[in-house]
């Protein structure tokens, strides 16, 4: 399926067929064999660590994220952070050095991690009912173990499961999904290869039952006419992710409840 483009000028005409990799083939299949509106396979597990108050592990395709939640507990470091009427949510995002193709050591305080941590904190401050825990602190730590596109989404989904596992009240789930626009068609759940092909894509985090968008992020340029299509596809993707996570939570709760009441 290699297209040899002899004349250098022609490279500008067919940007998404570079190096023989077509993002969408003629039959409508993507590089990993999905259709344009298909999500990657989601596997999740709650209660991974016994020491933490809540923990969860999620795999979306090849992207793997691990989240742990501690809290609510007394504010330990820095009495200045205490809020008298609600809990402080503290998020920390990190990527493992082995998570990308090339091993790259990432110091904790670098710009990208801080930006992601801030986005996560804003997302969860909107969803966790913090008014119930004055003067406390809730810590959410997320780590990416393997990055294959959709890092923020995997973090949000893993952190949602971890917060539910910790028994911290939330108004609703938060599910996140990406959607892009390539060759006149919207694509759901962008993987790393599709991201680096340069197509515009946006990330949406929303509360699926109340259909409210918590966070919307886009770093590329998309024509306003196409915005609605892409946004609709992303919200539909979030609801699909929610269906998978909800089933998993229900199974986990009913199994644990049965174990506790059997004695």
């Amino acid at each position, binding site marked *: 399926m290699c297209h040899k483009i002899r004349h250098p000028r022609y490279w500008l005409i067919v940007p998404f067929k570079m190096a023989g990799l077509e993002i969408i083939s003629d039959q409508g299949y993507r590089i990993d064999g999905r259709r344009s509106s298909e999500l990657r396979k989601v596997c999740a597990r709650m209660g991974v660590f*016994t020491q933490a*108050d809540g923990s969860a592990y999620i795999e979306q395709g090849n992207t793997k994220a691990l989240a742990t939640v501690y*809290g*609510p*507990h*007394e504010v330990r470091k820095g009495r200045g952070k205490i809020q008298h009427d609600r809990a402080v949510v503290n998020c920390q995002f990190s990527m493992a050095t082995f998570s990308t193709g090339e091993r790259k050591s990432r110091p904790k305080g670098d710009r990208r991690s801080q930006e992601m941590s801030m986005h996560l904190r804003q997302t969860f401050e909107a969803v966790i*009912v913090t008014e119930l*825990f*004055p*003067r*406390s602190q809730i810590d959410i730590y997320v780590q990416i173990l393997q990055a294959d596109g959709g890092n923020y989404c995997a973090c949000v989904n893993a952190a949602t499961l971890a917060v*539910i*596992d*910790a*028994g911290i*009240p*939330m*108004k*609703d*789930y938060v599910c996140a999904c990406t959607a892009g626009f390539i060759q006149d068609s919207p694509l759901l759940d962008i993987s790393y290869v599709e991201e680096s092909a340069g197509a515009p894509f946006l990330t949406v985090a929303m*509360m*699926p*039952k*109340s259909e409210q968008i918590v966070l919307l992020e886009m770093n590329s340029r998309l024509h306003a006419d196409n915005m609605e299509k892409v946004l609709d596809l992303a919200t539909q993707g979030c609801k699909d992710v929610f269906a998978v996570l*909800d089933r998993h*939570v*229900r199974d986990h*709760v*009913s*199994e*644990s*409840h*049965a*174990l*506790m*009441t*059997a*004695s």
Partner: protein
Amino acid sequence: MAVHITLPESRKKSAVPDAPKHLVTPGDVITTDTGYMRGHGTYMDDDKLKASLAGVVERVNKLICVQPLKTRYNGEIGDVVVGRVTEVGQRRWRVDVNSRLDAVLMLSAVNLPGGELRRRSAEDELMMREYLQEGDLISAEVQAIFHDGALSLHTRSLKYGKLSQGVMVQVSPSLVKRRKTHFHNLPCGASVILGNNGYVWVSPTINDEKTESSGGYEQDLEPVPSTDREVIARLRNCILALATHKLLLYDTSVLYAYEASRQHQVKDLLQPDIAEKVADDTRQRLQMESG
């Protein structure tokens, strides 16, 4: 010395009976009837009562609440807790009790050594660090709850006070069954304090005569014989095995687990398959006794 290494095993789905009657997840609508009072784990959105936790809905007359699987300890007055001192402050100690805020132990709520009854003076304030320091473990009872949810503890009885030699095990607070007494002298040769906050203290058998004169502050630091140590280690591993398999902890279940574990070596109880066997044996025996 051989190191025990096992490959990861997929978790077995235990034989689960039918799902509990009313299971909710955050954001689920519990009811649209406005006649109900909302309890823990719920919130009102427009006219609908929605769940904010994943758990089972419990309805008591007109009160609806959602019980989660595990949560931080929520104190009730009269509970027995085991806690660790985190800070020595002005006329009070701050104690970590696995709750969302540290509990407070006021100077006026402890027994002075020698059992004196007098007003606490400035000298007592300066001597606070000699009674309890950061890192000490205490057993206490919840006296009151502050308006922000922090607990106020007291050690006014002689059975409470500083804990000396023993082992602490941390489990989830929802696994400790509420009973009349939480101090148990087990016939196998050890004492157990099952704190309502999930902190469990296992120690050599307490002799009642010794603590009366000291007022709860003298630590018995004599070496513990190795037979007692083995009993304590075995009990600790049994409690961890029960907690991993989500069995409720009370004196009978701990004792049955101890008896079921007798055939194994103490260190073998840490292996997941043997721990599962002990938990299953205990569960079967408890079901036979009750059913």
